[in-house]
């Protein structure tokens, strides 16, 4: 039987472990494609701890998507080391690593020839879950992302709206309960209203499920809204890594420019209101 003191002790130990052992860690990572002269990212170092949502913010071509793909070993670093759960990605079995990492891309990247249920149940079935358990999990996830299981399970991605596809994409990434979620501009192609509602649902979801997430976007509003930390990237380098509050007070030129766009659109909103 556990005493309350030992329980507190365990909790503390776990917390310190979480602080000391980040879920994702980049150690002086550079990456360049074989033929290219300029590295896509250079000397990247940062940590993502359990429960955090790191948003990588930057314009297209700044290396933020590459950074994401280094985490689930779609790319291997040219120099330095990427560690996931304390182990270098080069030491991970890529298949194991990827099945422990949820991945969401724009438009969901759903398989057009699979039903919604089969899309969501993909990783569980690859992991050898039995049919009954997979089906339960699929229904649970559909409800979680706000889609009625009876109505949607049998449909094909082609029969869904963009927002619905994105919800299925998120559900698929969560299916095998991975500790880590990677999201590459998942809401980029959606209309503003759908995007707003998916963003708020995402906040709720990550809080509730205590997921760790790395989220790539070029939308500063989205970054401020979703991130527990914001990493500002430019030409393959990480300029700063701060909380949203710190970001708002940043003196960095690029950060200021981003904040400026925010002000402009807010002003516009006030004028029109």
């Amino acid at each position, binding site marked *: 039987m556990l005493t309350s003191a030992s329980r507190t002790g365990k909790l503390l130990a776990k917390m310190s472990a979480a602080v000391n052992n980040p879920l994702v860690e980049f150690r002086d990572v550079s990456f360049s494609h074989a033929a290219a002269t300029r590295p896509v990212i250079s000397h990247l170092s940062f940590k993502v701890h359990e429960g955090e949502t790191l948003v990588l913010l930057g314009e297209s071509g700044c290396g933020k998507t590459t950074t994401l793909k280094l985490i689930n070993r779609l790319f291997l670093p040219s120099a330095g080391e990427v560690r996931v759960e304390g182990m270098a990605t080069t030491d991970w079995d890529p298949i194991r690593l990827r099945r422990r990492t949820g991945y969401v891309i724009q438009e969901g990247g759903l398989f*057009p020839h699979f039903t919604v249920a089969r899309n969501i149940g993909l990783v569980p079935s690859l992991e050898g879950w039995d049919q009954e358990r997979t089906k339960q999990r699929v229904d649970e996830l559909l409800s979680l992302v706000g889609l009625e299981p009876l109505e949607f399970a049998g449909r094909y991605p082609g029969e869904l709206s963009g927002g619905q596809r994105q919800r299925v994409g998120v559900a698929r990434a969560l299916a095998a309960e991975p500790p880590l979620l990677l999201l590459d501009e998942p809401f980029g192609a959606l209309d503003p209203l759908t995007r707003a509602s998916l963003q708020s649902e995402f906040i709720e979801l990550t809080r509730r499920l205590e997921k760790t997430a790395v989220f790539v976007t070029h939308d500063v509003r989205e970054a401020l809204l979703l991130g527990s930390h914001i990493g500002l990237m430019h030409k393959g380098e990480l300029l700063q890594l701060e909380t949203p509050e710190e970001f708002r007070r940043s003196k960095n030129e690029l950060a200021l420019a981003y904040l400026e766009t925010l002000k402009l659109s807010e002003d516009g909103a006030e004028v029109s209101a």
Partner: protein
Amino acid sequence: MSFWHFLLQNWSELLEHLREHLSLVFISTLIAVAIGIPTGVLLTRRKSLRSSVLGIANVMQTIPSLALFGFLIPIPFIGGIGARTAIVALVLYSLLPIIRNTVTGILGVDPNVREAAVAMGMTGSQVLWQVELPLAMSVIITGVRVALVIAIGVATIAAAVGAGGLGVFIFRGIRQFDNNLLLAGAVPAALLALLSDFLLGLVERRFATDVRKTKRSRSRRRALAVAAIVVVVAAFAFFGWRQVEKSLGKSPASDVTGARVVVGSKDFTESAILAEIVSQLLEARGVAVERRFELGGNLPHDALVGGQIDVYPEYTGTSYTAILKHSPITDPRAVYQQVKQEYADKFKVVVSEPLGFENTFAILVRGAEARRLNLKTISDAAPYAPKWRAGFGQDFMSRADGYPGFSKAYGLKFADQPREMDLSLTYLALSSKQVDLIAGNSTEGRIAALDLFQLQDDRHYFPPYEAVYLTRQDSLARVPTLAESLGKLAGAISTEEMRQLNYEVDANKRGQAEVVREWIKKKF
């Protein structure tokens, strides 16, 4: 005779050739799919191989089919005559569309979808089987569709290497100048192509994923596609199995005597009739006969020497010049002796006694023209040649005793370069005034029927062409009745008789088996 009447009469033979055709196409397409799809997949993985392999497949398809058969025949194991050669050729033709579409289909899969599959933690083979192949399937099936239609078309030419199929009707129809026969081969082949194209089209739509599908049309389409697959597979399986059964099963006659003889023939009526005569005589003695008739070009010779047939009818002049490559001489006895001696030495082949008639080249003009200009000999016609066009079979154009020597001997110059066409079409071309002079066969039944006139070879240019049977020595030793049957035919067929037999088949459109049966009854 109407086409329908003809079909009713020849129903069982039509079904037989349809069956042969289907099994050729089915087996070759199956092999092409089994080779082509994995090759295509490999090419998507090995970019460096792609252009060279696709290039080779491309070249394969540009080789004219008859030429390809020609290349294949002398090659051991895959070559020779019969279904095997035809299947090899059909596979080579079918490969390109299947490989190309597999490559195109897989490379055409949305890169985002492929990346998602990898990022989900699928292994390489899971990505291939669960994502790439299903998404590429409709494009791949388009390739199979194209391959199938090509194979159905090319398989008609397989008849030239003795593989049977609907081409047998087509070749015979051209030769006998019989539209019903032509149509009996061409119409089912065309329908077969359309039907398989349609059925595979249904299957292809089943796999199309880019269209927005609704549940209802999806299930209906699935039902249609399943039905289509079932029909195709059932038809092929049924026909294919019967074919296998047939080739495995031994004919009862061979069980009785243990003797089995393969009789070949060249691809014209007279040769087929002569082959049929010896076949029926053997069958009357209880010997099982396999007929490999209507083999093109030098195929019968190659097949005889290669041991794929035991006996076929030949002409001494042809052997002397075309096979033994001697310059033409005019003494029949000398030619016969020389051929007999050299065939025994070189090929271990026995030349039978002459059958009693000659089939020499007959230089023919229209009867009306001959009467108007009062032509009797080739020399009479020579002055008119500059205003005439000539049409010759491929054989006559290329052989040693053919056109080059002939035109030199008579000092002939025609208006244009002579037209080279299928021998059996030249008679028709002459009577319909497409050409003015042809080199036909002297025993051709249609000479009288079409009112054609044979000009006399007054300078004795053409060597003697006595009809004989050529038989392998080991076949004679193995089947004693063979020598006996051939002996009966020595000097037994006069030129008039041969012309009459040809006429019955070519002009009166009667089956050669029936014509031969009557003749044997009357004769022996």
